C-alpha cells in the first residue's frame, strides 16, 4: 500500500512540475501579448509563479531525497519571503498613490471616485462620532439618575429626622441628647449637602463638558450636513449625469438602430446599384449592339438609297412603258370596241343568216313536200 502511495507521490510530483512548466509558458506568452498593461505591478504574480521552480529543481536526477526535500522547502521559503517583501512594497506604493488620489478628490468633489472617498474615509468618522454621541448621552443620563437618587435619599432622611424630633420632645435630657445627635446628623447632612453640592458642581461641569461636546458635535454635524448636502448635490449631479448617459445610451441605441437601418438600406442600395450597374452594362452592350445595328442600318440605308434610286429610275422606265402600255391598251380597247361592233354586226348577220337559213330550210321542206307530192302524184 505504502509502495503504491510512494509511486503515486513521485508521479504526482512529475505532474506538478509539468503543470508549472506549462503555466510558465502560458505566462511568458501572455506577457509577450501585453498582459502587463492590465496590472499595476506584475512582480507579485511573477514571484507567485516562480514558486513552482523549487518543485521542478527537486525532480532533477541523482539528487538524494533528503536534499531534494530541503531544496523544495527552502526554495519555497525564500520565494515566499521575497514575495512577501515585494508585495508589501507594491501595496505601499499603490496604497499611497491611491490615498493621494482620494485626498485630491476633497478639493475636486466633482469626481465619480468622491463617493468611494466618502465611503472609505468619511463614513467611519461619522460612525465614530455617532458612537461618541451615544456614550455622552448615556453618561448624562447616568449622572442625572445619580443626582435624583441622592435627592430622594436626603428627603427621606429629613422626613425621618422631623419624625424623630416630634417623638423626642418628652424629656429635656433626651432632647439634649437628641439635639446632640441631631447636631451630629445635621453636620452629617451638611457634609452630605456639601457632597451633593460638589456632585452638582461635578454634574454641572459634566453638563458643561457635554454642552461643549454637543457644540462640537453640532459643528461636526453641520459639517456633516454640509458634506451630506455636497454629497446629495453630487448624487443629483451623478443622477443627472447618469440620466444623460442613459439618454445618450438610448439615443446611441436609436442611432445604432438608424445606422443599422441605413446600413441595411445601403446594402439594398448597393445591391440595387450593382443591379443598375449590371443593367447599365447590359444597356451599354445593347447600345453597342444598337450602334452596330445603326451602322448596319446606315449601310443598308445607303444601299437602300442606291436601290431606291435604281428603283426610281426603273420606275420612271416602267411608267414610260406603262404609258406606252396604256396607250396600246386604249388603242386595243378601241380596236376591241370596233371588234365588238363588228362582232355585233356579225352576230346580226349570223342571226339574219340563220333566219334566212331557217326560211330556206322551211322553203326547202316545202319544196321537198311539193317534190314528194309531185312524186306521189
Amino acid at each position, binding site marked *: 500500500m*505504502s509502495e503504491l*502511495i*510512494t509511486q*503515486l*507521490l513521485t508521479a*504526482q*510530483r512529475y*505532474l*506538478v512540475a509539468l*503543470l*508549472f512548466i*506549462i*503555466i510558465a509558458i*502560458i*505566462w511568458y506568452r*501572455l506577457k509577450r501579448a501585453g*498582459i502587463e498593461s*492590465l*496590472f*499595476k*505591478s506584475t512582480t*507579485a*504574480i511573477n514571484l*507567485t*509563479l516562480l*514558486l*513552482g521552480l523549487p*518543485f521542478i529543481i527537486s525532480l532533477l536526477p541523482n539528487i538524494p531525497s*533528503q536534499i531534494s*526535500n*530541503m531544496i523544495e*522547502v*527552502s526554495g*519555497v*521559503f525564500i520565494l*515566499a*519571503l521575497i*514575495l*512577501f517583501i515585494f*508585495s*508589501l512594497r*507594491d*501595496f505601499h506604493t*499603490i*496604497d499611497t498613490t*491611491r490615498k493621494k488620489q482620494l485626498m485630491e478628490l476633497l478639493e475636486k468633489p466633482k469626481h465619480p471616485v468622491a463617493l468611494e472617498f466618502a465611503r472609505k474615509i468619511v463614513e467611519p468618522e461619522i460612525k465614530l462620532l455617532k458612537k461618541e454621541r451615544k456614550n455622552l448621552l448615556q453618561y448624562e443620563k447616568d449622572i442625572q439618575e445619580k443626582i435624583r437618587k441622592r435627592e430622594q435619599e436626603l428627603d427621606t432622611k429629613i422626613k425621618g429626622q422631623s419624625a424623630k424630633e416630634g417623638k423626642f420632645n418628652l424629656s429635656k435630657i433626651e432632647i439634649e441628647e437628641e439635639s446632640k445627635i441631631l447636631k451630629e446628623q445635621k453636620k452629617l447632612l451638611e457634609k452630605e449637602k456639601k457632597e451633593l453640592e460638589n456632585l452638582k458642581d461635578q454634574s454641572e461641569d459634566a453638563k458643561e463638558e457635554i454642552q461643549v461636546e454637543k457644540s462640537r458635535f453640532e459643528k461636526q454635524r453641520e459639517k456633516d450636513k454640509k458634506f451630506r448636502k455636497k454629497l446629495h448635490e453630487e448624487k443629483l449631479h451623478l443622477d443627472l449625469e447618469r440620466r444623460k448617459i442613459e439618454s445618450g445610451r438610448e439615443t446611441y441605441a436609436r442611432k445604432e438602430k438608424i445606422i443599422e437601418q441605413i446600413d441595411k438600406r445601403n446594402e439594398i442600395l448597393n445591391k440595387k446599384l450593382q443591379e443598375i450597374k449590371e443593367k447599365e452594362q447590359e444597356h451599354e452592350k445593347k447600345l453597342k449592339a444598337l450602334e452596330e445595328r445603326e451602322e448596319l442600318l446606315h449601310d443598308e440605308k445607303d444601299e437602300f438609297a442606291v436601290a431606291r434610286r435604281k428603283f426610281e429610275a426603273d420606275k420612271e422606265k416602267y411608267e414610260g412603258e406603262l404609258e406606252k402600255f396604256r396607250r396600246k391598251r386604249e388603242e386595243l380597247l378601241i380596236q376591241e370596241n370596233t371588234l365588238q361592233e363588228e362582232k355585233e354586226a356579225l352576230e346580226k348577220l349570223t342571226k339574219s343568216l340563220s333566219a334566212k337559213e331557217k326560211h330556206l330550210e322551211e322553203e326547202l321542206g316545202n319544196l321537198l313536200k311539193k317534190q314528194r307530192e309531185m312524186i306521189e302524184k
Partner: protein
Amino acid sequence: MTHEIYIASFAALGFIFLIYSLTVLFRIKEQESNRITPAYNALLFGLLILSLSLLAKAIKYIYLIFSKTSIDSLIYFDVASTLILLPLAAGSFLVSMFIFRRV
C-alpha cells in the same frame, strides 16, 4: 535530526510568509482593475492551497522531531501535501492563466 528541524522550520516559516503575502495580495487585488479579478482570485486560491501544503509538511516534520520515531501513518501528510494539495495549487494556477488568456 537537524535535517528534520531545518525542513520543519523552513516549511513553517514559508507557510507564515505565504499567508502574510496572501493577505497583502488580497488587498492589492482590490485596487486592481475588475477585469482581472477572477484570474487573480484563482491565483490567490492556488497560493492558499500551496501554503496549506507547506503547513502539512511542517506538521509532519514537527511530529517527527518530537516523536523521535518514524511512524507509517505520517505518510498521509505526504498524501495530503504532495498528492492532493500541490496538484490542486498548480491546477488553480493553470486555471488562472487560462482566465488571464480570456481577458
